[in-house]
């Protein structure tokens, strides 16, 4: 009872903090039909700075971290990414009215990570003075890539299986991935080609490559002065603009969901909580093994709860052209992302109660 009250009061307090307040403000703007809009180049610039900030910050910490401390949570993150996709495959993708292809794409997007949501989590922890491992940003690609690769491979294999049983001669799953046209997937060696193709494509996507660049700069160079004088101080302010944009986008995508099956709405509402809980549990495990901090557990939960909003959608559009983007983008941007961001205080309260900051 006390625990519940605690959690509730933490959540209420967070709703007034900048991050959530700007998100809700953005939703209200869109709801009242405002013509306010942030130009696309500005959005891209904010995202770039934010990804570099997360990457560089993580890179600087990786320098000093010891190997085990780093590898265990990375493995945990990758496992969470894969398991989220498997859950989606067993639930959403089998629902009546949901095409398996669309379901898998949605599961992939929810397994992947949103840098913006992660950054929102970091800002909230920073705001409360709660510590977390500096290298947390380095876990992002592990969960993100694991989820996207799993979802794409499983979706394409099952499409291939269907094509093999039903005799459909043409339009057979031909796909373009970063310019390379790949046919249907017949034998093990082409399996690896497929996985490699997806990996290369993901690594080249703007978000992942900006994050990896940041990591590399943090590890191999000494960007500390510019990190502290520029990336760090601008971070919170730009995040507030980003939350505005995400709130507006969420509201305007909600309407697209009217056209898709109800299952998506249920999934969009429940999945962030379920995935977050999964991430939390794995984080708890890592906490017991390596002494991973309570803040780190929260951020692992946040990554798991989040769904990719920058690189994920175009990667999936390229790799699974038969999946309907209205379904997966609508579910993720319209429901998954705001629910994930709004549930960050929940994970914070939970970590406070179960581990203690």
């Amino acid at each position, binding site marked *: 009872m006390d625990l519940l009250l605690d959690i509730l009061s933490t959540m209420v307090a967070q709703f007034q903090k900048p991050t959530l307040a700007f998100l809700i403000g953005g939703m209200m703007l869109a709801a009242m039909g405002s013509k306010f*809009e*942030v*130009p*696309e180049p*500005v*959005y*891209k610039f904010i995202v770039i700075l934010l990804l570099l900030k997360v990457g560089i910050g993580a890179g600087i910490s990786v320098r000093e971290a010891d190997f085990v401390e780093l590898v265990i949570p990375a493995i945990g993150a990758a496992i969470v990414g894969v398991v989220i996709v498997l859950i989606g495959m067993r639930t959403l993708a089998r629902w009546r009215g949901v095409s398996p292809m669309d379901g898998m794409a949605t599961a992939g997007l929810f397994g992947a990570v949103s840098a913006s949501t992660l950054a929102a989590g970091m800002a909230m922890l920073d705001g409360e003075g709660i510590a977390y491992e500096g290298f947390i940003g380095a876990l992002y690609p592990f969960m993100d890539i694991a989820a996207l690769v799993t979802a794409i491979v499983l979706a394409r294999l099952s499409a291939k299986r269907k094509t093999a049983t039903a005799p459909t001669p043409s*339009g057979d799953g*031909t796909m*373009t991935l970063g*310019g390379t046209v790949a046919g249907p997937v017949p034998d093990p060696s082409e399996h690896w080609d497929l996985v490699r193709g997806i990996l290369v494509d993901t690594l080249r996507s*703007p*978000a992942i490559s900006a994050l990896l660049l940041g990591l590399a700069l943090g590890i191999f160079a000494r960007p500390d002065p510019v990190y502290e004088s520029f990336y760090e101080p601008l971070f919170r302010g730009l995040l507030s603009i980003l939350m505005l*944009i*995400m709130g507006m*986008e969420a509201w305007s995508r909600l309407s*697209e969901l009217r056209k898709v099956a109800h299952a998506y709405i249920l999934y969009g509402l429940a999945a962030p909580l379920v995935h977050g809980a999964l991430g939390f549990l794995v984080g708890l495990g890592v906490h017991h093994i390596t002494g991973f901090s309570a803040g780190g557990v929260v951020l692992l939960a946040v990554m798991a709860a989040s769904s990719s*909003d*920058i*690189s*994920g*959608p*175009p990667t999936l*559009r*390229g790799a699974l*052209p*038969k999946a309907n*983007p*209205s379904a997966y*983008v609508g579910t993720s*941007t319209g429901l998954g992302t705001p629910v994930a961001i709004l549930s960050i205080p929940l994970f914070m309260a939970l970590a406070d109660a179960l581990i203690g900051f």
Partner: protein
Amino acid sequence: MYKATKLVIITERVILEGVTDLIEAGGATGWTHVDAGGRGSRGKRSARRPGVGGMMGNVKIEVIVSDHEKAEAIMTSVADQYFGNYSGITYIEPVEILRPYKFAV
């Protein structure tokens, strides 16, 4: 003045590269593209709105080729390869050009 054919393809920005590969494979000497927004059977698409990795924008591609068959062939190959899974329309217009050698390989 010489007769030539203009082929126009309006489709999703994410496949610009794939479509221009088909255009080049079809023997065109060049192409021009502009960012676009629009509405069609798959709903509204905007070139300006932020979010979703720039996935929601359209592109209008135009190609001048010297003969009509070439235009039709490129048109069909683009429609076959992409229009099952991606938004898009395509049409052809007759045009007059000054320098036919610019548009023939």
